[in-house]
Every structure is written in C-alpha cells, then in structure tokens.
C-alpha cells in the first residue's frame, strides 16, 4: 500500500514539476522546477530498491542543475520574463505530436510484456557492488569512452578559458588603456 501511495505521489509531483518547467516564461521558475523534478525522480529509484542509483540521481543532478543556474545567471536577467520568438501553431502541433510519438515508442514494449530485468538485485549485496560489476564487465568500453570524452572536454575547456591565465586581468586592461 505504501508503495502505491508513494508511487502516485512521486509521479504526480514529477509530472507537475516538469510541466511547470516547460510552460513557464520565467527562467528562475523553469530552473527551480527542473531541479525539483530531477530530485523527485530519485524517489522512483528508491521505490525499486535501487538506493545507489537514486542517490546518484540526486547528486549528479544537483551539481548539473547548479551549473545550469550559473549559465542562467550569466545570460539572463532572472527577474524578467522571457519572450518566446517561435509561437506558431505548426510549431506547437509538431512538438505535441513528436512527444506523443516518443512516449508511444518507449511504452509499447512495456505494454506487450517484452521487458525483462537483465540484472536483478542480488540479495545481500549492495547496489553499488551490483552497478560496479555490470559497469566494469559488460559495459567497460562505453564507460571508458565516456571517460575519454570527458577528459577531452576538460582539456578543451582549460585551453579555451586558460588564455593569458598567467597574467592578472586588471593589469592587462590597464596596459591597453
């Protein structure tokens, strides 16, 4: 009974949060409800006894959304509403149609009962161990590729941002003037 109540509460809250994210015109509302929704989704993982993944969901999205906030802070005035430039009817219909398509594609396998748990939870072994086993045996190559990609992105970021890092920014301006 608890599971059912919790499931419906979490689903309702998740959908509500993301609905706000999509419909609101204010950057701050959108960001906050996005963060809320991402964190509420972790409730689903906890319900499925996947504690580790639930916690990872919280940690990763807290950091990620905070980085997004930082961008929002740089690019927008968060106290003003954003005026949408594309508000045509075709645009709206296409968006709705494509999202319906996506939902259908993802739910049809579940409806036909073709979904099986490939890696069920082992009794007595923690989630972290289970995830680690699968990650470092079956999915080792994607894992390493992702690591290399992140490294490339990091080096790129350092090079882009690191020009004239050895000089003080205020001194550079004074010399130019």
């Amino acid at each position: 009974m608890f599971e059912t109540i919790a499931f419906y509460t979490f689903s309702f809250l998740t959908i509500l949060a993301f609905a706000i994210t999509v419909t609101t015109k204010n950057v701050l509302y959108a960001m906050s409800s996005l963060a809320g929704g991402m964190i509420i989704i972790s409730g689903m993982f906890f319900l499925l006894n996947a504690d580790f993944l639930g916690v990872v969901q919280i940690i990763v999205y807290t950091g990620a959304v905070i980085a997004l906030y930082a961008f929002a802070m740089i690019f927008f005035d968060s106290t003003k509403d954003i005026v949408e430039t594309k508000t045509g009817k075709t645009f709206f219909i296409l968006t709705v149609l494509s999202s319906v398509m996506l939902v259908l594609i993802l739910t049809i396998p579940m409806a036909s009962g073709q979904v099986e748990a490939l890696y069920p939870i082992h009794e007595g072994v923690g989630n972290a161990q289970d995830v680690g086993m699968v990650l470092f045996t079956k999915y080792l190559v994607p894992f390493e590729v992702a690591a290399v990609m992140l490294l490339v992105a990091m080096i790129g970021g350092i090079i882009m941002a690191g020009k004239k890092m050895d000089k003080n920014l205020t001194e550079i301006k004074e010399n130019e003037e």
Partner: protein
Amino acid sequence: MELDVFIIQTLINVLIILGVFSALAGFTTYLERKVLAFMQRRLGPMYVGPYGLLQVLADGIKLFTKEDIVPTNSIQTVFKLAPVILPASAFIAFAGVPFLPDMEIFGVTFQPLIVDSNAGILFVLGMMAVGMFSPLLAGLSSGNKWSLLGGARTAIQLLSFEVITGLSVLAPLMLVGSLSLIDINNYQIENGWLIWQQPIAFFLFLIAGYAETNRTPFDLLEHEAEVVSGYATEYSGMRWGLFFIGEYVNMYIVAFLTVLIFFGGFGEGTFVDGLLYLAKVFFFIFLFLWTRAAWPHLRPDQLMWLTWKVLMPLAVVNIVITGLVVMF
C-alpha cells in the same frame, strides 16, 4: 520487523530528529555566542535568564514576531520557498544518520536511524548538497545585486567542494568496502579508528564540511564586509531564521559524519559508547566555533586556489595510495 512496530519506530525517530535537533540548532546559537565571547574575553549574552540562557527563547520570539517583508521586485514564489529548502534538506539528510547506538527498550530493539540504506553516506552527503539550492535561489530571486553575488558564490563553492567531499570520503570507503554508515562503524570496532589510517582524508573532509555548511573560514556567501549579507540581504524574521536552523542542523550532520567515519562512531553500542559518541560529536561542534573565533575568512580567489590546487590533488593522491595499499 512487524509493520506497526516499524511505523511507530519511524515516527518516534522523525519526531526526535525534528524536535531535538531544531531545538539544539537554536541552543547552538547560544553556545556559539558564549564560546566566541569566552575566546574574545567578553561575557556574551548575560541579561536574559541565568547566564543568558533564555536568550535563545527571546531570539525565537523576536524572529517569529518580526514583520515579514517580501520585496516587490523579487520573484515572489521562489523568494518565499527558498528558505524552506535548507532546513528541509538538512532534516531529510538526518534520516540516514544513526544519532545513537541501538537501544533495548521494554524488550524491543529501538534503532535510532530512519533508513539504513546500503548507500547511506552518499544519501546524507547528497541531501546536504541539495540544501545549497536554498542560498542560490534566495540570491537569484531577491532582485538585489548583493544577493545575486551571494548566489553566484554559492554556485562556485558548491561545485568545488562537492568534489572535495566526494573524493576525500572515497579513500576510507575503499578500505571499508561499504557505503552503509553502520558498516563503517562496525569496521572500526575491529580495525581501530579510521583517522589513524586516513589522516589526510580526515582533514580534507573536515575542510570540505566547513565549506559546505558555510562556516567561517569559508563564509563567502554572506560575508558582511564584502557583500552586505549575501543571499540573506533581503530576508527578515523567521524566513531569515530558517536559513540558520538549516545551517546549524547541517553542522550537526557534519559532526556526526566525521565521528562516524573517522573516530569510531558509537563502537559496540554500549551505554558508555553512546555517551562517548555524543561527547565526540559535541567536540566537533566546539571545533566549528573555535575555528570561527580563531580564523579569518578567505577571499574567493584564495578559496578557488585552495580547492583546485591544494585539496583536490591531495585527495586524488590519497586515493591512489590507498588503492595501491588495498591492492597489494
């Protein structure tokens, strides 16, 4: 376990956490003022009640009855919601912290811990990090430049110190081989306190803990001399007070975690062990106040230097060495 016993236990635990720790948060403000006063050769609060003990009550009445101001140019909903996030996430994080050893009461074993999850420590740290949304949202929604600066500082501080906390905890966790706080505690019964094996990790964790709870050497978010009051500039009354309840509860979480991970926790769980556990926790609370009295605060650029050029490399080296030791 029987379902009704489980429900009653959980309710009792929730009430203890909400009641005792929010009261303790208030009381810690009094302790803080007294300790600071002692170290600076002052008297501190003296007038309200014996030794100023009722000062906490007076402050509470003041906070509750003060006018609640919401600025016109702020984003109202977010502005009102922001102070709630910090205490809420702090109390949720407490769900994963065993605040006393198991007790036998009327023949029923009472476990003062709401969730013994096998990802316990990550849950606590993750929920504490969620609390950082509170100053960030407060800063962004206030419609005030100082608040915005405070919010921006929150973003940097969180992003940098999340890394340090995670990496510093990783090395002791590799030795223990489990994320459950109970397992970490039990490991130390046989192998001795983890601080002797992981001194570097301990210092890194403590420093990161100070930064995450926004305590003095790293209180950049609301440093009065630079950004007026940072994210809290526009807040008044109890909304402002909520930030402080959250901060002090977070302090308790960091103290509990430090003791559990590095100082043997509650050991085998006898009565004496329980008392020692609380004594150790209060020593770390005292250390928080001591540091505040003794240390000047850092500049933002010094903070970044400290994080990325000193603490993070140290943490990574520590992990590599621990890994080598575990392997061979």
